[in-house]
Structures are given as structure tokens and as C-alpha cells.
């Protein structure tokens, strides 16, 4: 199956010549029992009418939805703007936010390819060259060396700057920046400390901040909508009130408890920041949080202020300006409400956006202490502040580690301590913790399903994760045993849902996915039995 890379020469690499035939699903990494005979459906090519409007990447996939230019002048303008953006990316004025790590990674990769085997997309795809972590980074390095640095056109072939920059190269590079989930597993294995995922993020940033090109789900439907409407889901404060009313009724019905959803409580201990995707797709997560916090006697609140009810910050994935605007708004809401702390719910990128990354951005006057929900939950569970009956969770459970919480923040043990306490049949995936594989939905991919991207996401980006899940449950893989895949992250859950649906894992293996708080509530003695509903949704 491993035929080796189809790009065979440096010239082909520089012009992305030969990957145009698209992803060959027969090369994808094989899956274990009961999927030995699994036949992947091919990823559909863009239709002729789509190709008239949109430029796909070198693999035939389209995420950024770059429009086909109407004239040669427009093509030239894109190339010129790209070079202008690249220059800005290398200045401290325009890019102080990441200049140092960027230039360190740009200038010191020794091209040893140690990172390649760490990348779940490269390996999962059957080693497609355009997905290699160094591929897009190396294209950018060539362009910088040839077109930005002085004397770049002297002996370009000898020095490896053998790239002719044109519109095709520019737009393909833009598309390829959306074939990496920024999970940073590659960076973790780099002996020099180079971070090719960061370079990918910088490429996205260049296109967004200079040319206005970004994956629409991240920009127009993401940060722009969030900053104007209040949430990237489009949820406004009135809609939020309806959802909270429904949540109260649902808790009464399912758990037999009367629990109010506190809103805008000034001076509360915690402002709980949920990914608003939970409200619409997984309301049981929001409800489980409410049940736990009430049972623990914690004074908490939600916010109905614009942005205050959606912890999402997709700017983290592609645009420093949008990231900063959203992060500042989040802290402003918390400050104005006068809460003592912010508690980040089960959302990986919100953890990273609100905690380590915001640390050097939020001015002192807006600072509010911020904490991971996993740490608070660990305290409540391990110190027996909740009445729990682990036998209610007597089914196989495994944990998916969200990259942003583990690899990028070092929160690894609390979730394990909780699971060891409440899930007697808990087992780890391999590898796990900070060495986990990304779910394949990272960096905003989970919310992108347009054109043929969701097919790519399930078949290629999530391939290794799905294999890991099967291996974790290998001893009880039959559909007769219901199994719980715990993913304490909203975007990861979106990807898990799509993986389970595509691979028919609920019917074939009885694998259900959900968050961590649902498992805790499922074990709570004071809650009616059966909080987890064993049906695929």
C-alpha cells in the first residue's frame, strides 16, 4: 500500500506538480478488526461548476475556498500582496506576537524529517508528500530565501531556492495551510525545537491579515459573526435565554432535579465559559455542569453579554487581530460582571486562548483569574465532594486528550484522576497524554464541512485517531458492549461524531462519544440513573 511519495524531485516539490490526482483512499493507513475489509468511499472531486468558482488545493480538497481570479491582473495582485504580507510577517511592528518563534522555526530546520512520522495526517494519508510537516514550511522557506532575503536569486538551484513564485504556488500554499490541525505533535519531536505547525499558522495569518483569505467557517462565520452577533453559532442573547429555559426543563425531566441556570450573577465565584456549540449540539454537557456545580454548592454564573456566553476564539487558529479582539471581549465581560474567576468549560482551544495565550495580551486592568474546569472537577471528584457511585459507569471508557489542553497547556493528570475514580473500566489510548494524536478536527477543522472537506477530515485527518479508538477497545470491540469515548472538548466531540458516523462505529462497535462531565453526573448518586443516553446523536 505504501507506494512512497508521488512527488519525486525537488522541481516537482517546488511546483506541487504531481499530487494533483488527489487523495488515494487505498493508500490510507489500514484499520484493525473489525475494519480489515473496510472500503473507504473516495473523496469526491469538486464539480465543474465548483471549479469555475473555487480553487482547490494540490490534493483536490478545498477548505479556504479561494475564488478563481477573473483576470491576469488579479492573479498578479494576489502574488504581490502575498509577498507584501510575507515582508510584514517578518517585521516586529506587524508581527511582534509570534516573530521570535517564527523566525527561529523558519531559519533552523535541518530537514531531518524526524517530525514526519509524528504527524497523524501525513502518516494517516499513507505518506502523501504535500501533508509532510516540512512540506509547506519548506515551500515558505524557499520563497523567503528567494524573494525576501537579499541576493536570493543568485544560484537559486544550488542553494535550494528553486521556486518560481506565481499565483498557483501562492493559492496552493494557502490551501495547504488548512491541511494541518496545528496539533504540534511534529514540534514535540523536533530535536532542534522547530515548530512547523507554527509556520502553518503564520501562513494562515499572512493570508488572513493581508489578503483577507481564510477558511470561511473561521472568519466570516466564525470570529466576524462572534464579534457582531455574540457567538459564532449565531446565537444571540434572546436565543440563549430560550436554551437555558429548555436546559432547566431537561434537567428536571432527565435527572429529577430543580436546578436554575444562573445568568449574569454579579460577584459570583465562577463565570463559566462554555463553547456555545455545546448549547446547540450537546446541551447535556451544559446541564451536567450545572448539576455538578449546584451539588458542590459553588456560586457560579453564565453571562448573557455579547461574547460572554461563547468561549470560542477561532482567531487562535488563523489571525492575531481577531484573536486579540475576541480575547479582550471575553475578559471585559468577566471583569464587568465582577466574578472572582473564569472557569473554562470542556473546550480545548478556549482553554489555550483564555489562559496561556491571553496571559501576555490582557492588560492588567482587565485581568481575571482563569482556571480549567478539569482541575475544579478533579477537586470535587477526588476529594469526594460529590456523592458518586462508579458502578453506574460499568462500561469500557477511553479518553481522548484534546491537544490544546494537554500538549499546549500541560493539563494531563486531573482528567485521569477523575476517570480512575468514576470509570472502573477506564483504559488509555496509546499514545496518550501530551503524546496523543489529534482527533483530526483541530484548528477549526471540526466546524468545516463545506465542499469535500468533511470527507477529507474523516478519512484522512481523523484516520489515526479512529485507529487508536479501535485499539483502545480491542478487547471488547463487538457492538454488544456499549463503550464510551470521553472527549472533553467541544471541537473534538464534533470530529468524534463525524468519525463515528462515517465509520459506522456505533452500529459496528457500539462506540458512543461524549464529554467528561456527563460521565461524572452519570455516576452521581443524587441524580436519577441513566443520565447518559445510549443513542448516537
Amino acid at each position, binding site marked *: 500500500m505504501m507506494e512512497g*511519495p508521488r512527488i*519525486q524531485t*525537488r522541481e516537482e516539490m517546488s511546483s506541487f506538480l504531481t499530487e494533483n490526482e488527489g487523495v488515494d483512499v487505498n493508500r490510507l493507513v489500514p484499520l484493525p478488526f473489525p475494519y480489515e475489509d473496510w472500503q473507504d468511499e473516495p473523496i469526491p472531486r469538486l464539480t465543474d461548476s465548483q471549479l469555475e468558482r473555487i480553487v482547490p488545493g494540490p490534493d483536490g480538497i478545498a477548505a479556504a475556498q479561494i475564488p478563481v481570479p477573473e483576470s491576469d491582473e488579479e492573479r498578479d495582485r494576489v502574488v504581490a*500582496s502575498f509577498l507584501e504580507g510575507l515582508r*510584514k510577517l517578518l517585521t*516586529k*511592528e*506587524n508581527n*511582534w*506576537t*509570534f*516573530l*521570535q*518563534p517564527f523566525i*527561529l522555526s523558519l*531559519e*533552523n530546520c535541518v*530537514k531531518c*524529517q*524526524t517530525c514526519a*512520522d509524528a504527524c497523524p495526517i501525513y502518516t494517516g494519508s499513507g505518506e502523501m508528500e504535500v501533508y509532510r510537516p*516540512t512540506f509547506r514550511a519548506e515551500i515558505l522557506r524557499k520563497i523567503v530565501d528567494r524573494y525576501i532575503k537579499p541576493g536570493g536569486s543568485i544560484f537559486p538551484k*544550488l*542553494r*535550494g531556492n528553486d521556486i518560481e513564485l506565481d499565483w498557483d504556488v501562492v493559492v496552493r500554499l494557502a490551501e495547504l495551510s488548512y491541511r494541518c490541525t496545528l496539533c*504540534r505533535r511534529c*514540534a514535540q*519531536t523536533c*530535536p*532542534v*525545537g*522547530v*515548530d512547523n505547525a507554527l509556520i502553518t499558522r503564520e501562513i494562515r495569518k499572512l493570508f488572513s*491579515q*493581508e*489578503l*483577507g483569505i481564510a477558511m470561511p467557517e473561521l472568519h466570516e462565520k466564525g470570529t*466576524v459573526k462572534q464579534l457582531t452577533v455574540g457567538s459564532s453559532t449565531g446565537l444571540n442573547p434572546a436565543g440563549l435565554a430560550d436554551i437555558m429555559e429548555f436546559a432547566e426543563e431537561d434537567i428536571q425531566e432527565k435527572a429529577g432535579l430543580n436546578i436554575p441556570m444562573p445568568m449574569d450573577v454579579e460577584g459570583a465565584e465562577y463565570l463559566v465559559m462554555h463553547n456555545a456549540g455545546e448549547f446547540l449540539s450537546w446541551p447535556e454537557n451544559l446541564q451536567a455542569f450545572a448539576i455538578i456545580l449546584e451539588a458542590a454548592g459553588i456560586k457560579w454564573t453564565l453571562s448573557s453579554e455579547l461574547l460572554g456566553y461563547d468561549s470560542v476564539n477561532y482567531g487562535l487558529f488563523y489571525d492575531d*487581530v481577531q484573536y*486579540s479582539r475576541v480575547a*479582550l471581549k471575553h475578559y471585559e465581560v468577566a471583569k464587568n460582571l465582577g466574578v472572582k474567576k473564569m472557569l473554562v468549560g470542556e473546550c480545548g482551544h478556549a482553554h489555550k486562548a483564555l489562559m*496561556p*495565550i491571553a496571559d*501576555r*495580551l490582557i492588560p492588567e486592568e482587565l485581568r481575571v*483569574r482563569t*482556571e480549567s474546569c478539569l*482541575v475544579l472537577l*478533579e*477537586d470535587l471528584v477526588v476529594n469526594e465532594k460529590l456523592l458518586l457511585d462508579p458502578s453506574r459507569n460499568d462500561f469500557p471508557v477511553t479518553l481522548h486528550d484534546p491537544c490544546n489542553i*494537554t*500538549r*499546549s*497547556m*500541560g*493539563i*494531563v*493528570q486531573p482528567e485521569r484522576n477523575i476517570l480512575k475514580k468514576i470509570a472502573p473500566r477506564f483504559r488509555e489510548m496509546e499514545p496518550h*497524554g*501530551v503524546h496523543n494524536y489529534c482527533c483530526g478536527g483541530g484548528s477549526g477543522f471540526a466546524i468545516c464541512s463545506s465542499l469535500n472537506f468533511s470527507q477529507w477530515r474523516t478519512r484522512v485527518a481523523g484516520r489515526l485517531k479512529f485507529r487508536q479508538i479501535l485499539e483502545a477497545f480491542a478487547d471488547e470491540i463487538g457492538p454488544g458492549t456499549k463503550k464510551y469515548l470521553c472527549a472533553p472538548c467541544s471541537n473534538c466531540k464534533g470530529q468524534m461524531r463525524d468519525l463515528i458516523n462515517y465509520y459506522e462505529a456505533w452500529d459496528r462497535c457500539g462506540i458512543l462519544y461524549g464529554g467528561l462531565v456527563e460521565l461524572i453526573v452519570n455516576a452521581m448518586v443524587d441524580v436519577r440513573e441513566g443520565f447518559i443516553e445510549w443513542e448516537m446523536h
Partner: protein
Amino acid sequence: MVGYLLGGWVWLCLVTFAGGCLLRAFKYATAPVHLRWDLYPVAHEPGRDHGGSYFEQLEWWTKKREKDHLAEIFAMAAEILLLKGVWENNRRLWWASFPFHWGLYLLVGTTLGLMAVMVGLGSPFVTVVLTAGGVIGGGLTCLGALALLVMRSTDQKLRLYTTPLDRANLLVLVLFGGLTVAIAVGFPGMNDVPAGLVSLLSFGGATIPAVWALQIAVGALFLFYLPLTRMVHFFAKYFTYHQVRWDDQPIEENPKMASRLQAALAFGVDWSADHVGGGRTWGEVATTIPGMEEGE
């Protein structure tokens, strides 16, 4: 005449090497403070064995921060001396890279030893050590570079990303390593080497055998271009580890950094995309949204 020319070449290369390295290090060191980009495990964290951080603690800001500097040093030492990351993640390459790096370390050590002898710190024991350093260091460098050259020429994954200049660089090191072995063997006890070097560097006019002159010229050439290459990772690695992936210090513990960040917010932004609204400072851009009322 050859001696004078060679002396001049060596000085030129040494100055270029030192100046080039300093300039690059200066560029990295003076880059503006960046947003955090931690990557776990972080070697100085008490929870490093499982990749944990201080964020694992309830009310982490109230806890005394523990930073294990010794663990950080051990982690770096394992990287530098054992190439631990390559061993764990790219075993095949390690068999070539490890001897290559150790060859270079030994050659650097031998050169420092020669300098010690040049200032009168020599002894018979030192001479034996230097000879061994030259033979083993040169040999490992030569063989390691040769192995890397073969791998970079035959392995498709490496070949695609290897430039003609990368190959030339490895050839230079194969040659330099081989010549070093020849000299260490050919000048028993290396007795004449320190005096010859002193004469060369002080333009004393001493006659230097051809093979040795070639070795010096090739070694100097390597130093000359090194700062222009990715081989500066020998110091860049300090920044990638200590100032990026292991830099997890909260801002409130570093008031100096806070004032540098304040200065960064005054930088002018001229990104062109409409949503940025360039032509203002970072602080202004981040707190306003084009098309919406100021500060809304």
C-alpha cells in the same frame, strides 16, 4: 607567502564566524517578546514526567511556583550529548547523526586543548589526549558526515529536502574530518601543531606542510559559512527551548516583560485586509472593530 595567505584566511574566517553567530544570536535575542507558545512536557515543571504544568493545580496562581532548573539542565544535556530526541523519534538517523555530532564536539575540544597548549599549558598527558581527540573526533566527523551524505542522497524522504549546498557542506566535513585524522596520525604527539598555529595566526612565516595547510583552510571555510546556515541550531536551540517551548512564566511574575508588551501595543500595524483596519497601533486595532462603533 602561503603561510601569510593562510593566516589571513583563518583570521577572516574566525572574524566572520564570530560576527555572523553574534549577529544571528542578537537577532533572536532582541526579537520582541511574543505571546506564549508553550509545548509540553516542559523540563522544569514538577509534573514533567507526565507532561504536566502548574495549570493542573486548583487556583494555580496562589501556589508557589516550583521550577526545577537542574531538571532543565539534564534535559538539555541529554539532547546535546545523547541526541535523545533523535534517538527516540528517528533511530535510523541517530546512528549517523550521533557520531557526527560527537566528532564535532571532540574536534572543538581538541581545538580548545591546542589553544591551551599555545598559551603554555601543555604536558605529555595533554598531548596524548589531543592526539586521541584528533583521531577519534576527525574519524567520527568524517564517517558521520559520510553516512549523512549517503542517507541524504539515497533516502527519498531526505533527498527531496537536501540541496546541493547541503551535500557540499557534508563533503567539506568529510574532507575536514579525514584530514584531521591524517594530521593527528602524521604528526605523532602533535608536538609541532601548537607552535605552527601560533606562527600562522601571528603571521610568523613558519612553513606548514601541505596536508595541514589544507586541513586548516577547509576547517576555516566551514567556520566562514556556518553562520549563514541552519547549523547555527547549536545556539538557536537555546532560544527555541528556553524562550519558546519551555517559557511558561506567567506575566505577573515578570514586570519587565509587561513593560515590553506595553511597548509592543504601540507598534504601528499596516496589514491590508479590510477587517484589520490597519494604519493604527496594535492597541487600537485590537480594541476596535472596523465598521462598528469605537470600543463597542
